[in-house]
């Protein structure tokens, strides 16, 4: 295929009125006339730092680790509750150590970021219609926030109440 027509890498003799400047041609770069030779850029491993919105997205995905962390803690607490007051007191003591407190505070900030970014995106995914009219996006987001506050209150009441 590369034989007669192009004469191999960089050696094609075509009557193109001198348009072909061969100076910059690099070895191994075969070009066949009338055949595209695509150039594909490789994506840098740092692509997510190139744009604020990309970085925000990656951060949002990474903060799901914190969500998993709290889900695990929650399950641990519920399990301990089932085991009786002694087991629960033990868990509470463990969660009160300085390391656990620092982890919880950092984790909480990450979860906040995760939650807020997702709730702000929710209106795009949810088309809610009430009597044929589309509910405005801010209302969909507000409903999510309200549900969040309500559920958090229930969970807080459950654990703080159980503590006494």
């Amino acid at each position, binding site marked *: 295929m590369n034989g007669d027509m192009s004469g191999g890498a960089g050696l094609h003799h075509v009557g193109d009125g001198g348009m072909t400047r061969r100076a910059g041609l*690099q070895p191994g770069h075969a070009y066949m006339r009338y055949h595209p030779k*695509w150039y594909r*850029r490789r994506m840098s491993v740092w692509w997510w730092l190139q744009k604020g919105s990309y970085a925000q*997205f990656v951060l949002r995905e990474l903060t799901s680790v914190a969500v998993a962390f709290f889900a695990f803690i929650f399950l641990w607490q519920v399990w301990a509750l089932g085991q009786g007051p002694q087991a629960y007191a033990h868990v509470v003591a463990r969660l009160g150590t300085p390391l656990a407190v620092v982890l919880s505070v950092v984790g909480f900030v990450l979860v906040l970021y995760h939650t807020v970014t997702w709730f702000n995106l929710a209106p795009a995914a949810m088309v809610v219609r009430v009597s044929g009219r589309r509910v405005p996006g801010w209302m969909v987001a507000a409903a999510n926030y309200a549900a969040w506050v309500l559920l958090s209150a229930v969970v807080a009441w459950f654990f703080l109440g159980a503590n006494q």
Partner: protein
Amino acid sequence: MASTITLAVTRYRPEEEAEPTVETYTVPFRKDWVVLDALNHIKDHQDGTLSYRWSCRMGVCGSCGMMVNGSPKLTCAAFLSDYAPGPVRVEPLQFFPIVRDLIVDIGEFLHKLKKVKPWIVRAEEQPLSEGEYLQTPDEVDAYKAFSMCINCMLCYSACPIVGLESHFTGPAAIALAQRYNLDSRDQGASGRVEILSDHEGMWGCTFVGDCSRVCPKNVDPAAAIQQYKLTTAVDTLKSWLLPRGSR
């Protein structure tokens, strides 16, 4: 106001260079000029070998998309004055293979577009004698925004998933699939779900959201994809939970 502005334009001449290079041109700076006007000025007066695509000059044909200072733009709608004092970086749409200078290969995109059957699919066409398919204004509104797409591919250039995973069907094609799913005349939704239910389809999308930010027609492809995911998930759930008849 400065009387000239500089453009740093990507050149790629595959017959003479292995990699793209950058060439700078200085053009008159006029308030009413867009980047495309500057490119046309270069082509007419400075360097006739510069290659790029354009047609309508009015944001309709979708062929003049390029990266302007790193963001995907319709160059016929990107005013030089917004980039003053320059230099203005003009590059081919990213994540597409470059054919020459500012021209990219759109073959993959066209293939993806066709894959989702972006046309009205009917199990059976109604005979002509019954007239046209009628729609209420509400039925038109259900899909109208998604039908404004001009296939400019700016959304593909904005999407890091397209860059990382070249098989990903991508924003515009999935949005167009959803446009037909939402059309009351269409009956092809179940066929499209089969095509789009894998990681190359809608589930490949991780909702970065940049596609919607760059879309010149406010199509909001990100919303289309998330809505598509939501209906698909709900339908799947229903098929597990509900007895056959009531789905």
